[in-house]
């Protein structure tokens, strides 16, 4: 059999076309990912600004006002300043752990955003193990904090890192048990399915009413996972100077801030998705979804409304956690661990038991 060179060239060109198609597929996949990263970066900047403005409001101060209108650009200005700051490596520390630590904390939290549905089809990866991926990945963050605490070779940092790890793992079990109850109710651990299970009956269909105990336990545990006040023991500034961040300067210090605010945004988004019906317009008897055909057709308007509703619910919870910061005093370490192990864990186990029994009764 003779193969002419032109045929070979044809085959080759087809081959390159096919491979080009794959390359285009990958590039096309990059677009939503970069949009997501950009979106959550802007989200973090907004949260930083909101936190400053709300804190100022609570303490009757003025807050940021010079950078941009109403001080909106304050967070951006701070971030740019941190970029130009000197990068100090402690002389006796472990440089490698010291540098990788903040990056690991950020990476693990960034990854968890891939399973959040912002609108009805607007999700990076609709996995059937979506919420499980979040639980698995979010437990990597304390490793990063522990690494940075250990790598600094500073007593404050070391204690802060230990506290961060102990706190995260203590509150992870109640958190996971609450999520387990939710996925038992929805018979799925895909975030999209969980939201769709809450789409009927307006806000009466929210998991909030079917899981009131779980909701409260989830809220407390997610606050503790974010290391926000009243659970900010790892960086308690009166005892440990700044916890695991003590030795950091420049952008690595900024990365810790990015990680903590990303974590806050993520927890609020998950509260919205798990308990508050995600992107649904949750008004009973007003069939707004049918009116705008949001749940049926994924038009641009419907998607935009979905995003808007998700973010509105999310920012409500961000507001609650920021207001909590200036309302409640900090716990002691033993109180914190007792709350986790002796209160939240039995309660969330009981909640799981209740949920299972009701599922069995509704058979």
């Amino acid at each position, binding site marked *: 059999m003779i193969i002419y060179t032109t045929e070979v060239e044809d085959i080759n060109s087809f081959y390159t076309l096919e491979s080009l198609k794959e390359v285009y597929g990958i590039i096309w996949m990059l677009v939503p*990912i970069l949009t997501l990263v950009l979106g959550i970066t802007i989200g973090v900047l907004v949260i930083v600004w909101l936190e400053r403005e709300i804190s100022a409001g609570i303490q009757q101060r003025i807050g940021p006002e010079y950078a941009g209108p109403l001080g909106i650009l304050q967070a951006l200005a701070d971030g740019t300043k941190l970029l*130009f700051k000197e990068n100090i490596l402690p002389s006796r520390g472990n440089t490698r752990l010291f540098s990788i630590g903040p990056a690991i904390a950020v990476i693990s939290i960034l990854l968890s955003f*891939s399973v959040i549905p912002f609108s009805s089809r607007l999700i990076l*990866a609709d996995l059937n193990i979506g919420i499980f991926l979040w*639980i698995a990945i979010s437990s990597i963050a304390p490793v990063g904090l522990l690494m940075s605490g250990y790598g*600094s070779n500073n007593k404050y940092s070391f204690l802060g890192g230990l506290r961060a790890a102990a706190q995260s793992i203590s509150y992870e079990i109640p958190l996971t048990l609450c999520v387990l109850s939710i996925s038992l109710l929805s018979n799925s651990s895909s975030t999209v399915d969980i939201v769709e299970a809450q789409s009927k009956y307006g806000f009466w269909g929210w998991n909030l009413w079917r899981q009131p105990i779980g909701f409260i336990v989830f809220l407390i545990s997610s606050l503790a996972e974010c290391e926000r006040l009243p659970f900010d023991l790892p960086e308690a500034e009166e005892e440990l100077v700044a916890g695991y961040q003590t030795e950091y300067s420049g952008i690595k210090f900024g*990365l810790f801030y990015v990680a903590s605010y990303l974590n806050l945004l993520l927890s609020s988004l998950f509260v919205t998705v798990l308990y508050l019906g995600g992107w649904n317009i949750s008004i009973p008897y007003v069939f707004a979804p049918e009116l705008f055909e949001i749940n049926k057709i994924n038009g641009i308007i419907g998607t935009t409304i979905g995003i808007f509703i998700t973010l509105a619910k999310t920012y409500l919870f961000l507001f609650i956690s920021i207001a909590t910061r200036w309302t409640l005093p900090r716990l002691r370490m033993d109180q914190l661990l*007792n709350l986790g192990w002796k209160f939240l864990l039995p309660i969330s186990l009981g909640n799981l*038991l209740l949920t299972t029994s009701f599922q*069995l009764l509704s058979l």
Partner: protein
Amino acid sequence: MSEFAPISIYLVISPLVSLILLGLPFPFASNSSTYPEKLSAYECGFDPFGDARSRFDIRFYLVSILFIIPDPEVTFSFPWAVPPNKIDLFGFWSMMAFLLILTIGSFYEWKRGASDRE
């Protein structure tokens, strides 16, 4: 499995994002002179007393040991919760036995004072 493709790409992108952030200051950041006091560990302005790699409270260690048992148990109960057909009596009671063991273990460690912090 195609829904995992964005995840795997994202798995590459997110380290890149944080590494770019880590690398960005190198051309710009100021590099003033360094001296030993600047690079030493911060201890309220004093010279650091000893090394941080010393003994620490055993209770942090205990917490992580306590964590190891319940966490896989909870993780392994996800396959039980998720299937689309509802759980029947057999599934219910087998899970209850599982949870009972977990509860007995937690109760035992509570009574033994493993989670006490005096």
